[in-house]
């Protein structure tokens, strides 16, 4: 009645997982390439977070001749909490405009989060359904993009920004692009 294959299937599934693990664990950590590097930013318009004082933004804002940073965040994302201090630090340096993409977040929770931790963003777009996130190739939060003066994506950082990544990557990239 039951074919033999059904009994083999669990083992096969595990085998695939084990290979995935083995490859994953032996590889050196390195930055994941993004297909969007050196491409113009995708077209979008995002409303502000509902009920907040911030304004929303669109792809046109990223093409106004400034270096800008787009930071994808959400209040439910625990690493974002850790990252927030460094985003604030970057904003205070005033070397680039920092835009927030509030990813799949409840408006109330997002506003409470910003109230608690402070709001370093020039503008925040609410991507409630994550549609714009798809165009940006966001597959997890937090992610940060650096956009050059022509509105092209030049750098992508996956995961929370820490002091080291801020000093050694983000700030140098912004400085190079600003010249």
């Amino acid at each position, binding site marked *: 009645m039951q074919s033999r294959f059904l009994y083999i299937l669990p083992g096969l599934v595990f085998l695939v997982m084990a290979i995935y693990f083995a490859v994953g664990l032996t590889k050196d*950590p390195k930055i994941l390439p993004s297909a969007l590097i050196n491409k113009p930013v995708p077209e979008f318009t995002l409303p502000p977070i509902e009920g907040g004082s911030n304004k929303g933004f669109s792809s046109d804002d990223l093409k106004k001749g400034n270096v800008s940073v787009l930071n994808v965040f959400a209040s439910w994302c625990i690493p974002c909490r850790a990252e927030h201090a460094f985003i604030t630090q970057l904003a205070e340096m005033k070397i680039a405009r920092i835009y927030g993409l509030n990813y799949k977040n409840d408006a109330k929770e997002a506003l409470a989060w910003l109230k608690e931790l402070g709001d370093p963003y020039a503008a925040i777009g609410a991507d409630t359904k994550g549609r714009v996130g798809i165009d940006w190739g966001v597959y997890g939060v937090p992610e940060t993009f650096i956009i050059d003066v022509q509105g092209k994506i030049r750098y992508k950082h996956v995961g929370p920004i820490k002091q080291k990544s801020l000093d050694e990557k983000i700030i140098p990239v912004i400085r190079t692009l600003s010249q």
Partner: protein
Amino acid sequence: MTAEIGHFALILALLVAVMQATVPLIGAQTGRQAWMAMARPAAVTQFGLLAISFGCLTQLYITSDFSVLNVVMNSHTDKPLLYKVAGVWGNHEGSLLLWVLILSLFGSAVAVFGANLPPGLRARALSVQAMIAVGFYLFMLLTSNPFERVFPVPINGRDLNPLLQDPGLAIHPPMLYLGYVGFSMAFSFAIAALIEGRVDAAWARWVRPWTLAAWCFLTGGIGLGSWWAYYELGWGGWWFWDPVENASFMPWLAGTALLHSSTVVEKRDTLKGWTILLAIIAFSMSLLGTFLVRSGVLTSVHAFATDPARGVFILGLLIVVIGGSLALFAWRGPALVSTGLFKPVSREGALLFNNLVLSTAAAAVLLGTLYPLLLDAIGGGKVSVGPPFFNTVFIPLMIPMIIAMAIGPILSWKRADLMAAINKLWLAFLAALVAMAAAWVLRSEGPLLGIVGIGLAAWLGVATLIELTGRIRMFSAPFGESLRRLRGMPRAAWGMTLGHLGLAIAIAGMTGAGAWKVESIQSMKPGESVNVAGYDFTFVGVKSGQGPNYSLVEASFRITQGGKPVVALNAEKRVYNVSKRPTSEAGIHTMFTGDLYAVIGDKDDSGGYVTRLYFNPLVVWMWAGVLMMMFGGTLSLTDRRHRVGAPKKHQGVAQAAGA
């Protein structure tokens, strides 16, 4: 000296385990009674050795012996005694020692209480158990020795992570481990059955208590962890879908499925292959959980990079244990013939449906948990797919399951009449509608899912009571007769009723706390008031103080409702002396309808304090529901049939020699 005794006891335990893993198994395969008989004393000896080893480490912690690296890294002389002891398992090496201690505890329990087990099954199961132990002992001795010395000896230790210095968390890991490791028994029995090539009602009856015990501990462990997160992390949340929580939730889902499918094996002699597979999966998930949580290897690239030996060993161990058992399943599984046939609409069908949903849910959680970890491993950095992923995948899966959970128990075995069953449940349907309407009126602004959740809770709760009244013929027989039936109900039946009822209550709590939480974050100066969900929180003021190994700021709040005093709450913010890390102790007042919850934050520039005030509806229902589920499980565990063993005709006395 103590450290060396502990270390040697561990090495001796490894040698005993190697013997136990091979001799009884060969004995069972070749029919040598004396070889098989070695399993029981070996299992007890292992436990004795582990108790010595664990005792030594505990002694080192209590006396703050800083010549041992593990103690230096995780303890401090100023720490209260409770946390010195809890520090033993508050780290990677020590927690592994606790793990194997519990493993050997279960092994020796089988040896001591398993007198009515067929000798062949017992010998094989204990051998498999010892194989797992060998893997762990080697892992500890080669890569994670808790007794490693350090020289020169530091003057003091680095203290335990402040978040872990909490009574709830002190007992949380042992409880969780009793659950994780408990599934190793079901696993060992499953592997033994595969080697033997037979699974019958008797087998299911022997496995069931071990699964049930593991399930109860795991339920308690998860509940405790969630409770801890609720009062200690100070976000008013109780479940974050983070890898650590998921790691305990996956074996729970698989274990719950196993619990139900083993009933089918016992009663109806079918779903055998499936039950064996679930036993393997439940333990595999536990293994994965152990490593995800405690080793730090899979949660962080950094930890892995500092000690690649651990990562490789863990991967190897997982491949041998999980891969090996699944290969054995592929080879021997088809030999397990099921005799009981059933129609899709039947008790078996409903249980199979429950199994499929639970397994799918476990797979979804696994995917959501591993995906960010794998991404991290290949250098993608730390990301979180977060609650949006889990909520959109997990909740829709649970809705049909809860609906079916109400119907399943009143279906008959083999073939049932679905319409008749649904007709019996009209009252539950009505209750669900009333509850949803009430939720709609009381909280019109919450999400739709909240109303659905309340409806489901009412549906399941009332349907469970309908099943109970049907069982004791309430309303259809004289009252005295019903009472007599109620008293005579088997404890296993009570277990199901309480388990399902507990879940219904917990769902109501989770829905309330998830959907209608009222939160208010602001800066307050002493004397100011904020209204949260109809309660006025007045910030009275702060005072500073000293704890045993931390300094604290204590804020007091006075809460009134409509001018009438309700309660005074104290919320603390602690900064630990050694690590300088802050923790918050929320002030919580629990009421039937919800919790008042206050957290104090930092002082801001204007001289006020950041305060986070919450009204968390129905939270206490959640804890009550979990306790009820645990109680139901424990009651079922004491059922007479587990004590008297299986009926004579199933007891394969001859099989040991014949195998």
